[in-house]
């Protein structure tokens, strides 16, 4: 391990630095010497090589502690509570919202709405936005490479509303054809929906360009950030997108909580689509007056403990330094790609270095399922199949999908070496 220079530590403890930058400097220093695996209790007690972080991430002790502490110290329903427990839980819940806003660069123009995850956020955005702005004859644009959670809601809602779904193809590099996108954008387009990073091949879509093209036509853009948020700094204001959806469980936080981060200008004009307690101001027999943002879109008792865990995961990531995390993971992604593609018998359907730590490959004559089983028997956990991306897989002629290795913050060069050793053993047997 490389020891950090004194300069890095001195820089990190400079009291004149803002918290985020101080954390970034500190993170840079610490990640040099720390194997983060030890902070994850599940990984610390096993030799398992976990390469399935795109499916879900493992949780650091800090997140587990924060949630347990909230249950132990102040578990109570949030908002409008007359008692001290409720007030404290509400404080922590709203602090979690502020933490999410800061982490994602959501300034005053944006609102963080807590959801049960990215899929819930995507469905909420699609249903509410189209109820407000969709109409028969209008169209929604999505990319062929989308995860089902950012494809099926739009497809189904368009079908039910007499709207068109325009699907932009991807090229051999896995990126969308921007020429086709530009041609597809018309006055009939009401929204463009795209992944920030794809879950199949780790392609970072040219989202700034997508936003520029769409906004030039007055069309808002929704980004599915599920695979991006834990792996690179995200600033929704800088990206300029109108909606950004994330899941906590994909960034070292708990399951059952996520967020829709959206421009207030859109949210104010979008009708709520889920109704009940918490989201109303006044209800009579004849009518209901809805609460202001954000409550209007958070019907029912929220997952407030989950929100606390979510926020702790975000602050934990901030402490690691997202720039450092991103650089390290991109270096590991390159190593993963370079080492795996050299193994005899391995086929990469998309042979380019992934932009993030997600690598899809094949090991013919084995099916992806066969290969994943043999890797499991060698202590390697990863995923196989169509990865909830049937349209892309079909277009690429991959009826059984791929084997997918996906990196998390706890993965190391040694993990990649173990994967390659395991792959070579399989290759030698067939």
């Amino acid at each position, binding site marked *: 391990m490389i020891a950090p220079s004194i300069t890095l530590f001195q820089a990190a403890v400079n009291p004149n630095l803002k918290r985020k930058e101080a954390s970034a400097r500190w993170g840079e220093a610490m990640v040099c010497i720390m194997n983060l695996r030890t902070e994850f209790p599940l990984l610390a007690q096993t030799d398992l090589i976990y390469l399935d972080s795109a499916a879900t991430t493992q949780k650091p002790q800090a997140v587990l502690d924060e949630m347990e502490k909230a249950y132990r110290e102040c578990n109570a329903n949030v908002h409008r509570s007359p008692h001290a427990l409720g007030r404290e839980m509400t404080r922590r819940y709203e602090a979690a919202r502020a933490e999410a806003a800061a982490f994602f660069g959501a300034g005053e123009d944006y609102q963080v709405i807590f959801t049960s995850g990215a899929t819930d956020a995507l469905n909420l955005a699609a249903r509410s936005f189209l109820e407000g702005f969709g109409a028969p004859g209008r169209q929604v644009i999505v990319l062929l490479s989308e995860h089902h959670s950012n494809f099926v809601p739009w497809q189904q809602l368009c079908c039910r509303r007499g709207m068109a779904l325009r699907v932009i193809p991807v090229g051999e590099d896995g990126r969308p054809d921007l020429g086709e996108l530009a041609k597809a954008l018309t006055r009939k387009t009401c929204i463009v929906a795209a992944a920030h990073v794809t879950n199949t091949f780790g392609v970072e879509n040219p989202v700034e360009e997508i936003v520029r093209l769409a906004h030039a036509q007055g069309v808002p853009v929704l980004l599915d950030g599920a695979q991006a948020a834990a792996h690179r700094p995200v600033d929704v204001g800088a990206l300029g997108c109108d909606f950004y959806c994330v899941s906590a469980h994909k960034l070292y936080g708990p399951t059952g909580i996520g967020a829709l981060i959206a421009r207030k200008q859109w949210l104010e004009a979008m009708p709520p689509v889920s109704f009940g307690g918490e989201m109303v101001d006044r209800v009579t027999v004849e009518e209901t007056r809805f609460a202001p943002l954000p409550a209007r879109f958070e019907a029912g008792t929220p997952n407030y403990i989950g929100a606390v865990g979510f926020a702790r995961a975000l602050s934990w990531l901030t402490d690691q330094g997202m720039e450092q995390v991103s650089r390290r993971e991109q270096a590991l992604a390159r190593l993963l790609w370079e080492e795996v593609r050299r193994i005899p018998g391995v086929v990469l359907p998309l042979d380019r270095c992934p932009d993030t730590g997600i690598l899809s490959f094949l090991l013919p004559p084995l*099916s992806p*399922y066969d290969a994943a089983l*043999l890797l499991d028997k060698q202590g390697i956990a990863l995923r196989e199949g169509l990865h909830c991306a049937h349209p892309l897989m079909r277009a690429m002629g991959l009826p*059984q999908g791929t084997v997918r290795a996906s990196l998390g913050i706890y993965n190391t060069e040694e993990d990649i070496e173990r994967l390659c050793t395991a792959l070579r053993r399989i290759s030698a047997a*067939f």
Partner: protein
Amino acid sequence: MTIQEQQREYADRFAALPDDFDRYTLLMQMAMESPGLPEEEKGEGSRFPGCRSNLWYRLEEEGGRLRLLTDSDTLIVKGLAALLADLVTGRTPAEVASAEIGVFDALEIDMALTPERREGFARLVELVQRRAGELAG
């Protein structure tokens, strides 16, 4: 050799291997060596509907003996199906219908399969034995 004896032979062969990796590899290599079905037969008509992987089969009787041909796009399922085909082919319908086919439990192979595949495979064994029973009269 009876069906029971043949199953015991398979179980012993797999148990002699040092680890699960070797057991699965053997099964997959057996799959690659099995004749399978011609491409033109791998359609909806011969597809067994109960399995998550594509599994095709043809069970026929000739001269009082059964012949089972199987194929799959997943080697582990193809290998298990090939074992079943090996147990069944050349035997009388009555023998197959009345046998206790438990080799797959002995192999402990099915524990690695997803529940859908495990259940699907169990239903294939049931189907073959039921059809054998019908052929036996």
